[in-house]
């Protein structure tokens, strides 16, 4: 992979401007989180990067090449897991490998290795609907990493999980990311999740979406969520978010008068 970074300049939305022209560079192997209020265009941006949406202006590039449609080089993890219920666990992880025409034996070995790294090796031949939400998302993470993409896009992947499951999945994600250094773009509502995971946190503004600030998190992993420096980062992000919220409330107030 020759990717040194992504240049992103776009505006999306057909009439409703979901995302103002926005530029963002992400380094290869970097973990970047997008946080912001609902409707700030963070999912829009992610879908453009995935190739599931076309940018209406500007170009999204990866490794210098413009993004055209979905590609197996950009893996995705969805909030609702999106596992294929007609395949068993290992069948889901092998799906992308099969599309890449990886031979059968090798496919199974890779899938088992990634299932092992999310602690689900013993569940390889279970049916998907026998798993809990947290386990499903671990399968989805294994599935996304197994195809060896350059980039993994995660759309509020832990949003539907309880707090404890969430913590343990964050740890597992960091582990698997440290072993397989992919560029990760991670959309979340949770400020502390963003600070725990990311190299940089991108704070976005409410409609139309734009980048408010970019905050590098300079803390070694594993991060202690109760340390003062951690709290300071959280405080800084909340401050940016709240001034944004106040602004959007004020705007709505005006509109009503």
């Amino acid at each position: 992979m020759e990717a040194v970074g992504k240049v992103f300049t776009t505006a999306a939305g057909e009439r409703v401007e979901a995302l103002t022209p926005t530029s963002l560079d992400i380094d290869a192997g970097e973990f970047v989180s997008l946080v912001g209020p609902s409707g700030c265009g963070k999912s829009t941006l992610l879908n453009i990067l995935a190739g599931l949406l076309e940018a209406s202006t500007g170009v999204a590039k990866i490794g210098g090449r413009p993004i055209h449609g979905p590609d197996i080089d950009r893996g995705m993890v969805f909030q609702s897991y999106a596992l294929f219920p007609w395949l068993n666990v290992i069948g889901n992880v092998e799906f992308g490998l099969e599309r890449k025409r990886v031979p059968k034996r090798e496919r199974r070995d890779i899938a088992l290795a990634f299932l092992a790294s999310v602690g689900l090796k013993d569940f390889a031949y279970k049916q998907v609907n026998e798993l809990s939400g947290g386990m499903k998302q671990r399968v989805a993470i294994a599935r996304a990493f197994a195809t060896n993409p350059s980039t993994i896009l995660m759309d509020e992947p832990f949003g539907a999980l309880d707090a404890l499951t969430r913590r343990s999945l964050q740890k597992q994600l960091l582990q698997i990311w440290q072993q397989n250094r992919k560029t990760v773009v991670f959309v979340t509502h949770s400020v502390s999740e963003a600070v725990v995971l990311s190299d940089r946190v991108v704070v976005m503004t409410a409609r139309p979406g734009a980048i408010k600030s970019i905050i590098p998190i300079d803390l070694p992993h594993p991060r202690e969520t109760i340390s003062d420096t951690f709290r300071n980062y959280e405080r800084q992000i909340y401050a940016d978010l709240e001034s944004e919220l106040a602004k959007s409330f004020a705007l709505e107030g005006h509109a009503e008068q």
Partner: protein
Amino acid sequence: MVRLLSRLVPFAIAAIAIVAAWWTVILVFKPHVSLLPPPAHVATEFWDLLASGALLTHIGASLGRVCSAWILAAMVAIPLGIAMGRIPIVERMLDPLVELIRPISPLAWIPLAILWFGIGESGKVFVVFIGAFFPSLVATIAGVKRIDPVLIQAGQVLGCNDKSSLFRKVVLPAALPSIITGLRISFGTGWAAIIAAELVAARSGLGYLISNGMEILRADRVLVGMIVIGVLGVCFDLFFRFVQRKISWGAA
């Protein structure tokens, strides 16, 4: 096996209840034997028809017509249903036509079928085709439309870049449970339609057995035909449910 038996118990109870009611009617109203014979008479007639081979011939005739029409209906309904479910313009064009023809009972087609095809096999296959077509079509459209869009997206980011691989790897397996349900219901409606078609115009089949029984005032023969139709209908349905459990992922 135990599961199968436990499924059959309610049917056995229903059968006993029917026979009990039947006996009661005979004891209370004492109808003439040509109108309502006692169960024992019907059982004897059943054995006679079975032993002579006539019953199996009629079953075979009906079943052959239903199977061929059902397969034909599936071959048209499934591709059409997928096209209507996936391509909005196809649906907009064909949906009014489907909605217009669907409420017309397959039995209403029998006169036309006789006019067009005579009383040969093709007329009956045509009537069953009409009966079997719509349940499969409607179930296929629904199954394709109900696919969670996020599964399509997951397929796309996992390497199904072109429409055909996306179709084979995601759309078809995702819609399969609905399609199989449609096929099962289709077989049931087809089975109902063939009896009606044979009542009117046939020289073989269970429907013919019944109408012939009426003409020669043999209520026992009519009842044998009806019971066989019911029991076979249940058997087919159980068989399809069994197949459904074996091959589809989301089935009830």
